[in-house]
């Protein structure tokens, strides 16, 4: 399989600050990668850069075969990003939001219903305004929207934050299914029990660079230190 992400010397400036200061990273298609690092290491910027949302420079920056240096827009339809904040319209009801996501990603109503069911949003919750939901419930709606989008590359920033045990398990299962289906998953987390996701590789960022790339705990093999 080819590389889903191929970065060489990628630099991304946020208000003149080098949030990414020469990232070298290769992620294979179908791989699951866990991004680690202290606050401000560049994890969120790396995820947003992979989504084509951040202007960048570098020797090479390809995501799903699309050259981000030449064109950052085309790749966006093929990736799904869930950041710290939940991209939802607070005044919409859950069913309105899921219908909007389905229309945005050319998905059917059946796919929207299946996504709602996966995150236990069916029934009474469907008619509730998103603003009235708890943080964890809002996160579940956002994850359902991401499921509807059927991305080839999943980019998740602290995906387990605010979720209860059942929803965490549903998310783990979803990501496992996505990888099995050939999608690539990159997620950033500070949590230690996210190792349950059995990420194939752990990438550590520090100061806007990849400082270490190592197999997940239990996967064996030795670490590469940059």
């Amino acid at each position, binding site marked *: 399989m080819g590389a889903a992400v191929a970065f060489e010397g990628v630099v991304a400036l946020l208000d003149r600050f080098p949030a990414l200061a020469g990232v070298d990273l290769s992620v294979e298609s179908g791989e699951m990668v866990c991004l680690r690092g202290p606050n401000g290491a560049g994890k969120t910027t790396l995820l947003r850069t992979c989504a084509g949302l951040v202007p960048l420079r570098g020797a090479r920056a390809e995501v799903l075969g699309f050259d981000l240096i030449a064109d950052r827009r085309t790749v966006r339809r093929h990736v799904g990003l869930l950041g710290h904040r939940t991209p939802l319209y607070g005044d919409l009801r859950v069913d309105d939001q899921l219908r*909007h996501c389905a229309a945005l990603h050319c998905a059917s109503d059946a796919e929207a219903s299946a996504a709602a069911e996966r995150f236990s949003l069916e029934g009474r919750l469907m008619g509730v305004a998103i603003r009235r939901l708890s943080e964890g419930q809002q996160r579940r709606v956002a994850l359902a929207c991401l499921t509807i989008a059927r991305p080839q590359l999943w980019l998740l920033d602290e995906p387990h934050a605010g979720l209860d045990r059942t929803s965490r398990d549903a998310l783990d299962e979803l990501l496992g299914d996505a990888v099995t289906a050939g999608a690539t998953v990159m997620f950033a987390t500070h949590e230690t029990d996210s190792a349950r996701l059995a990420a194939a590789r752990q990438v550590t960022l520090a100061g806007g660079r990849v400082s270490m790339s190592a197999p997940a705990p239990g996967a064996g093999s030795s670490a590469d230190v940059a």
Partner: protein
Amino acid sequence: MWREVWLICRKDLTVERRARVTLIQIVPTVLLILVVFAFAFDANPSLLGAGAGGLFWVAVLFGAVLGAKRSFDIEAEGGNLDALRLGGLSPAAILWGKAMALAVQMAAVAVFTAAGLVVLFSVTVTDWPLLLTAAVCGTAAFAICGCLYGAMTVGLRSADTLLPLLLIPVAAPVLLAGTRAFDVALGTSADQGWSWTALLAVVLITYVAVGWAAAGPLLEDA
């Protein structure tokens, strides 16, 4: 392209249908402006009648400022604009979809404002086609202009004050031409009403052209 425009327009109108911000907040604010003017010029009712056309457009302009702010606030909240971009929507589709939805909301504001003028200032219409044409062109122009500057200021900490500061001067030609056309339509002036309406149409076309050119730079990295 037009499927995407309709998608955004429908979403914004659904948000409005659920929240009713236009009906519950913007329309009462606009009507309050009329009431304040009615109190201020109560001693001179003829002045109120003569200035009814201008008052209409001032009130709708303030409504457009509030509507444009609201329209882009919901996109800044939670990073919704990023979600739209990740849906592969073109910046132009986002801008025109939002402008269409805002135009519909401003049309509602205009209807309530006109009703307020009839009740408070006892105005009578002498040229309905002129009045309606000018109202449609002016309302659409405010909506497009509002969305352009709403997109420019979305996510900025100073958006609350920056948006009216930028929008009101640029909307002045609509205010001027709309007021002149309404003066004729309401029978308070013998000016060339259709000439002013033609100017309104030219301003509207200019805003549309600027919108096509500016949508990408404004919304790509907002």
